[in-house]
């Protein structure tokens, strides 16, 4: 497996989700990741990216969101950085999953999905940046 880290930049627009998908598929193929694994990584980064675009910026200027993928032996480290307002999604409340359809709320669902699909999630505020780091064990899902 290549140990090199791979990084790309996305503009602060939801249409960049297509670019996120393309980049992850390219990276996943090089690493020989299963379709399921690429799907899960895509979903986790999509939820974070969508959150950043929806709530992260107080102005209408174009911002850059940087994604870095680093394979470390059996673990894949995913990092997403933005220069938006300080926001720690890890502190978000868990949604109530026992609810009926009428009571069911969608808030907090994105972070709930991430917690279930990833093995570790860590937030840091570094200077004027939000830095979210995810870790996923890829030993079992590789070459699927």
């Amino acid at each position, binding site marked *: 497996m290549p140990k090199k880290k791979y990084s790309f930049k996305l503009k602060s627009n*939801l*249409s960049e*989700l*297509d670019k996120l*998908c393309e980049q992850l598929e390219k990276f996943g193929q090089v690493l020989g990741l299963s*379709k*399921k694994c690429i*799907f*899960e990584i*895509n*979903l986790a980064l*999509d*939820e974070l990216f*969508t959150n950043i*675009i*929806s709530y992260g910026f107080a102005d209408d200027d174009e911002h850059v969101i940087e994604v870095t993928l680093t394979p470390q032996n059996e673990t894949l480290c995913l990092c997403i950085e933005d220069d938006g307002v300080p926001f720690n999604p890890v502190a978000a409340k868990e949604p109530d*999953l*026992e*609810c*009926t*359809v*009428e009571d*069911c709320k*969608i808030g907090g*669902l*994105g972070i*709930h*999905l991430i917690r*279930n*699909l990833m093995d570790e999630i860590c937030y840091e505020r570094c200077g004027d940046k939000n830095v979210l780091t995810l870790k996923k064990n890829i030993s079992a899902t590789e070459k699927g």
Partner: protein
Amino acid sequence: MEIIEEKQDMISIFKLNGRLDSNTSQGFEKKIFDAISVGSKNMIIDFNELDYISSAGLRVILKATKALNREEGKIMLCSMQDYVKEVFEIAGFDSFLPIVATMDDALKAF
């Protein structure tokens, strides 16, 4: 994402093709609610050609389900790929949404 809309008996069928995310969910929401506003009460969403769904897609399905419940209508979801179905399961949506294996199973429910 491509959405093909068909009508069979009194059932509106939406066939999704591509990726349902925060960039495409608004278009899907509009199509569903346009159908509800002209009287559609029974719906089938066909996931056979859908490669991807995020919480933005789940949100539209939830909203449509609530609206159809108020109209005393019904929604059925069919033909999901395993990892798309897993997203519904992790979200806990499989407890109140009828997800069936094939289009035939969905049609039989009406």
